[in-house]
C-alpha cells in the first residue's frame, strides 16, 4: 500500500460469472424449498396433483403477490407501507358505492384503481413531503382507510356486481390458467424490469442503502419515494378489483390483515427488511411458496387459526434465521 505505482491495474468486472453467483443465491434456496413443499404436498394429499386444484391454489396468493411486487420496492427503498389491505377495503367500498348508481364495469375498474392511487399519493405526501416515518404514517392510514370503509358500509355488504365484472377474479385465459395468474406474471416481468433494469430501480437500491449519500449523488430521493407509494397504492387498487370480482361482494372487513402476509412474502423473498437489497424473482418464488403452503395445509383440513400461526412463525424465522446463522458461523470461526 505504501508505494504509489503509476501503472494502471486491471481490475476485473466481476470475480464470478452472474450464473455462478445465482447458484449460490437466496433465490436458489427458495426454489429448492418450493420444490420440496410441492413434493410433500403431493404425498400428503391425493387431490393435490390435479390441474384444477393446482389452479385453485394460485388464487390463494395472486392478489397479495401483486401488492408484494410493489411492496418489495418500497421496502428496498428503506420504507414500508402497512396500509395496503386497508386501501383494498376503501377501493372496494368505493366501487360498491359507485355500483349503487349503476356504473358499468370499465368505470368500476377505473374507480378501484384511482382510489388506490389516491391513497398511495396520500401516504407518499406524508412520508416524502413531510418527512414522517412511513411505519407510523401507514399504521395511521391503515386505520383511517378501513375506518372510512366501515362508516360507509356499517355491517352491510355491497352486492350485485355486473356479470362481466366477474371475469377479473374468476375468469380463465386458457384452460386452467386464470386471468389473475397471468396478470400477476405479467406484472412480475414489468416490476423485474423496473427494479433491475432501469436507472429508476438502481436509484431505489441506492436510497435504501444510504439515503443521504443518494441525495448527495443527485438522486431525487423524495420524488422517488413518492412514486413508490403511488405504486403500492395502484397495485392495492388492482388487488381490490381482483378480490372484489372474485368474492362478488364488498364487506368492510375485506382483505383484513393482508399487509402482514404481503410483508412476509417480500421478506421471505430475500428482500432485506432494513432496505437496500432484494430481488423481484425472489418475491415471485416466495409468493408461490406461500400459496403452496396455505393450500397444502388447507387440503389437510388445518384450520385457519393454525395457518395464521404458521405464517407468523415463517415471518419470524425468515427474519431471524440469517442472523442466527451469522452468529453460529462467527462462533465457529472464533
Amino acid at each position, binding site marked *: 500500500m505504501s508505494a*504509489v505505482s503509476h501503472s494502471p491495474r486491471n481490475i476485473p468486472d*466481476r470475480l464470478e460469472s452472474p450464473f455462478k453467483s445465482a447458484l449460490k443465491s437466496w433465490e436458489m434456496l427458495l426454489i429448492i424449498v418450493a420444490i420440496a413443499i410441492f413434493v410433500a404436498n403431493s404425498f400428503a394429499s391425493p387431490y393435490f396433483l390435479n390441474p384444477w386444484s393446482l389452479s385453485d391454489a394460485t388464487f390463494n396468493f395472486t392478489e397479495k403477490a401483486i401488492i408484494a411486487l410493489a411492496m418489495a420496492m418500497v421496502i428496498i427503498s428503506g420504507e414500508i407501507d402497512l396500509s395496503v389491505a386497508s386501501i383494498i377495503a376503501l377501493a372496494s367500498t368505493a366501487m360498491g358505492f359507485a355500483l349503487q348508481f349503476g356504473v358499468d364495469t370499465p368505470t368500476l375498474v377505473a374507480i378501484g384503481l384511482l382510489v388506490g392511487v389516491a391513497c398511495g399519493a396520500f401516504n407518499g405526501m406524508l412520508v416524502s413531503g413531510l418527512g414522517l416515518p412511513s411505519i407510523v404514517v401507514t399504521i395511521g392510514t391503515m386505520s383511517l382507510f378501513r375506518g372510512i370503509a366501515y362508516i360507509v358500509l356499517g355491517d352491510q355488504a355491497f352486492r350485485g356486481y355486473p356479470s362481466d365484472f366477474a371475469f377479473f377474479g374468476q375468469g380463465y385465459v386458457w384452460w386452467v390458467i386464470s386471468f389473475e395468474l397471468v396478470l400477476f406474471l405479467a406484472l412480475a416481468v414489468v416490476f423485474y424490469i423496473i427494479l433491475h433494469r432501469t436507472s429508476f430501480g438502481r436509484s431505489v437500491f441506492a436510497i435504501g442503502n444510504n439515503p443521504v449519500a443518494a441525495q*448527495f449523488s443527485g438522486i431525487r430521493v423524495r420524488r422517488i419515494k413518492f412514486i413508490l407509494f403511488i405504486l403500492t397504492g395502484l397495485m392495492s387498487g388492482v388487488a381490490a378489483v381482483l378480490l372484489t370480482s372474485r368474492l362478488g361482494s364488498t364487506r368492510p372487513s375485506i382483505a383484513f390483515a393482508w399487509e402482514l402476509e404481503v410483508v412476509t412474502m417480500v421478506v421471505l423473498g430475500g428482500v432485506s427488511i432494513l432496505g437496500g437489497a432484494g430481488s423481484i424473482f425472489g418475491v415471485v418464488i416466495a409468493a408461490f411458496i406461500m400459496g403452496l403452503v396455505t393450500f397444502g395445509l388447507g387440503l389437510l383440513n388445518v384450520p385457519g387459526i393454525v395457518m395464521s400461526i404458521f405464517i407468523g412463525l415463517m415471518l419470524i424465522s425468515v427474519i431471524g434465521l440469517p442472523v442466527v446463522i451469522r452468529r453460529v458461523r462467527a462462533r465457529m470461526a472464533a
Partner: protein
Amino acid sequence: MHKVLETEAAAPSLTLSGISKSFPGVKALDNIALELYPGQVTALIGENGAGKSTLVKIMTGIYQPDGGAITLNGQDITLPTAHAALGLGITAIHQETVLFDELSVAENIFLGHAPRTRFGMIDWRKLRAEAKDILASMGAPIDPNARLKDLSIANKHLVAVARALSIEAQIVIMDEPTAALSHKEIEELFVLIDLLKQDGKAILFISHKFDEIFRVADRYAVFRDGEMVGAGLMKDTEQSQLVRMMVGRSVERAFPKLDVTPGDVVLDVNNLSHPTEFEDISFSLREGEILGFYGLVGAGRTEVMQTLFGITKPSGGSVRLDGKPALAKNPAKAIESGIVYVPEERGRQGAITGLPIFQNISLPSLKKTSKSGFLRLAEEFALARKYSERLDLRASSLSQEVGTLSGGNQQKVVIGKWLATAPRVIILDEPTKGIDIGSKAAVHEFISELAADGLAIIMVSSELPEIMGMSDNVIVMREGRIAGRFAREHLDAETLVRTAAGIEGDPA
C-alpha cells in the same frame, strides 16, 4: 474517591508515559508523556490530526494504547473500558456533550451512580436534592427536573460539569468545550473551571483558541503528528512560540503540486450569505486553480460548499458558473450545471457502502450510461474501469462492495464517481481525512493532475500542510466570514493559524 489534599499539589495526579497508538497505516500517537496536576489546567494544543482526540479516547478507556503506562496518584492503572475510567474518576466533557436529551437534568447528573434506597430502588428524593445542591454550588440556574433537551448548549455543559462534580472526578477532560458557546457563556464556563480548580481537579483543556488558552491554562502541552513537541508553564511562553511549535517542520513536507497557469474564471460567488452559518462570502475560481479553504472546525466552510452544491439554502447572494446564474436548488441541478462535491463524511454522505464499486461510480452518471431509462451494464463497467484505473484503485473486482475497501480506496471511488460526470468545478471537503499516508499521497497527486487538466478545484482542509502544499490561493474563514486571502507565494503557516484563530498583532 478521596479528595486530593492541598499538600499533594506538587505531585501530578495523572501521569502518562510512553503512550503509543497505531492504526492501520497511521501512527496516531508516538511515545507520549503527559502530566496533569491537581488544581491546575493543562492546555493541549495541536492541529487537527495531531493525535489529541486519540489521547482523549485512551484516557477515557475507549481506545487501548499499544504501549506505555498510566499512573493515577502514583498507582499504575489500566483503563480497559469507559466504565473503568469513570470508576477511577476520569471524565470528559465533549464539544457536543454526550448526555441524554430525554432524561431530566438530575438523572443525567447521576446516571450510573444514582443514590439508592435500602430496597435497591433509585432514591429519587435524594437524587433531586443532591442534584439541586451541586447545581447551586456551581451557581447554575438550572432546574434539576428540566428535560435536558430543553436546555441551551451552555447549560448542557454545566450539567456535564455537575456530573463531573457528582462522581467526584479527579481528572476532567474538556474537549473543545467552547466551540458552540457565546462569549458570555464562555466566561461562565471559565468561572466554573476556576471552581473545579479550587476543588483540586486536574483539568485537561483542549482548544484551538489561543485567547482562551491563555485565559484559563496553567500549563501547556503541544502535539504535532502524534508526538509531543513541547510542554511547560503558560507564564513562560507566548502565542507565537506555541504557534511555531504547533506548525513546526510538518509544513515542509513535499507535495506533488504541479505548476499550472490558471485560465478563465469559471465560478464567481458574490455576497453569499446564510441566516446563521456564514455571511458575505465572495470569491472567484479559475480553470486549473486549486483554491484552499482553511479555518477551524465550525468556521462555516462546509456550509458554504454545501450551499454551492444545492443542499443548504442561502439567504442571499449569487453564484455564477461560466457567467450564467448557477445557484443550485438541489444536488441534481448542481451536478447538471457541472458543480460536484466530495463530502467530508465519506461513509454517510459520500459512498454507498452496500453497493458495488461500479454502481457507486455510475450513480450520478446514470443518465449517460443508460438509454431511455434502461441500464446498460457494459457502459457502467467501462466508466468504472476508466476511473478506477486513473485513480489507481486497489480492489479485487469492480463488483466488490465499497464498504469492504480501505478508507483511501473508498475515497478514490467517491472522487471517481464525480470525475465520471465530467464536472467544471469539483469541491473536495477534507479529501484526505482518515485515510492512510500512501493513499493520501496518491489523492494529492491526483488532485494536482486534475488541476493541470484544467478542472477548477476547491479544497476545504483543516490540515495546514495539505492547504499549503496544494493550494494556488487560500481563503481563511473564521466564524462564518472570510478572515483573509493569501496567494501561494505569500503562504505562511503562522499567519494562517493566526488568521483562523483570530489572533491580533504581529508574530514575534
